[in-house]
């Protein structure tokens, strides 16, 4: 039987149609509507050129959420990867209860962001929260803070929640990467008299480069898209101090300023599209070399 008949293009239709109509089309429409004054007040949609984009980048109060989004993506990516690597190295072998410990460290990944955010609202509470309580108990009461009430601190506290939640995910990716390191490399290093740090830097890390790349890419992407954790923890507050781009879009949606909100969506799209080009290249590399 001919391949074209056996592997019919019709098989691709349901998945592609769903993806096209409910994901690609809205994104493409976004490019058009971002150039209009589309809003909930009037029925007429007027073409206004790049005005929305000009407004985004000239309104000084917007710099806050752009800065927050970028900082959030960068800081959480680095911490998640470093902590994830540390956990993976500790739990790779030797520890007897490693399976139980891995299960525990990965657990926050599957818990709803909403629940995590609300729990941390209580943990961060300046008077009754257990974080300040813990700091006082170990004699560091001077460091206790109004974690989410202080405008300067709120975004950093949200980063803490994201790191708490997703470091386990990085750990799992690194653990998979560690299985790829050939054992005889360590034996050879032992014979050469290498200590733990030598082996880590000269043997382990080079073999982990693919895992590091994947983790950093996924971390940056999810960091730029962050919404739920901050929505549940601070809702962008106090004021707009911990607002991020996806939260601004949600607020614009509530206000009915759809054109402006869509323009923000397009900006986020462009940010991520640039990163995605690099990511797609990495994901598809093995298939290319096969042929």
């Amino acid at each position, binding site marked *: *039987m001919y391949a*074209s008949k*056996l*592997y*019919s293009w019709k*098989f*691709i239709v*349901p*998945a*592609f149609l*769903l*993806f096209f*109509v*409910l*994901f690609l*089309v*809205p*994104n493409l429409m*976004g490019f058009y*509507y971002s150039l209009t004054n589309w809003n909930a007040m009037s029925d007429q949609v007027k073409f206004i050129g790049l005005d929305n984009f000009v407004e985004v980048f000239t309104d000084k109060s917007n710099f806050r959420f752009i800065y927050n989004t970028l900082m959030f993506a960068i800081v959480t990516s680095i911490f998640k990867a470093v902590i994830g690597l540390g956990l993976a190295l*500790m739990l790779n072998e*030797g*520890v007897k209860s490693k399976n139980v*410990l891995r*299960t*525990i460290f*990965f657990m926050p990944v*599957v*818990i709803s*962001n909403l*629940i995590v955010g609300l729990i*941390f609202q209580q*943990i961060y509470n300046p008077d009754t929260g257990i974080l300040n*309580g813990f700091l006082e108990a170990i004699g560091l009461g001077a460091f206790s803070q109004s974690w989410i009430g202080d405008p300067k601190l709120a975004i950093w506290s949200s980063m803490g929640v994201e790191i*708490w939640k997703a470091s386990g*995910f990085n750990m*799992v*990716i690194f653990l*998979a990467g560690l299985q790829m390191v050939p054992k005889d490399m360590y034996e050879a290093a032992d014979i050469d008299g290498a200590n733990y740090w030598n082996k880590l830097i000269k043997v382990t890390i080079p073999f982990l480069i693919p*895992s590091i*790349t*994947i983790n950093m890419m996924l971390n940056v*992407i999810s960091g730029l*898209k962050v*919404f*739920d954790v901050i929505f549940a923890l601070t809702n962008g507050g106090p004021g707009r101090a911990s607002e991020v781009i996806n939260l601004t879009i*949600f607020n*614009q*949606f509530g206000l009915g300023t759809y054109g402006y909100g*869509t323009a923000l*969506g*397009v900006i*986020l*799209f462009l940010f991520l599209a640039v990163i*995605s080009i690099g*990511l*797609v290249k990495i*994901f*598809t590399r*093995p298939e290319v070399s096969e042929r």
Partner: protein
Amino acid sequence: MTRRTATINGLKEISMWILCLVILVPIAMLLLNSVKNVTESAAMSLKLPTSFHFDNFITVFKDGKIFSSFGNSLLISSVTSVITIITSSMAAFVMTRNRTRLYRYVYILFLVGLIVPMNYITTMKVLQMLHMINTFTGIILLYSATFIPFTVFLFYGFVGGIPKELDESAVIDGCGGSGLFFRVIFPLMKPVSVTALIINFLNCWNDFVLPLYFLNSSSKWGMIMTMYNYFSQYISSWNLVSAAMLINLVPILTVYVLGQKYIISGMTAGAVKG
């Protein structure tokens, strides 16, 4: 030497158990507060309750709409997972078998969907045009559309490992295109299907962004949204809120503990291939 290694491993073990308290303490806090009375739970602390109030759970079950929202979550999550798995596996199968340039571009388009964000506001417009806003059909198809890229990626890696010779022998035995897929290939994909099922199911169950945008009527909300609504109603009764959260966590953690192996294999698929 071996004795030294044993000591180091012991120290590692102890330090890791201490470190994992960071994860366990918030959960323990939730457990303790769910059985306190209102005044004690106002300060979410780790103090033991003076008396155990298991009736908090009964209160939540009585007025929290738990059962209907559990049904909604179950309906939305399972139908979404099934649609996603069937459509994605079919697409991935054809794309791995036909290695032409066109199919390659389609695959890359799916991968782009893995990365770029969803445009919520225009999605609302599309749903309105299709008359699917605020309906189960709309939200299920929307979830499917968002999960398809990841699921296609997952299946794509797996189908590539199924030898083509199998297709040929199936054809000789008289299978057509769909017979080949549904009778021969799909059963072989069971491990990856289970992975996709669990991951999509959990993501769907945990998500509250799409209902926030696209489901206005509370009668269609799943457990997470209902819990959030409950939280805003009883903001000062943290004992009840904690109990509601725990009721939410039980199904999620059960699925996690039982399906852990599959979740992790799915999530590492990308890293191992890269």
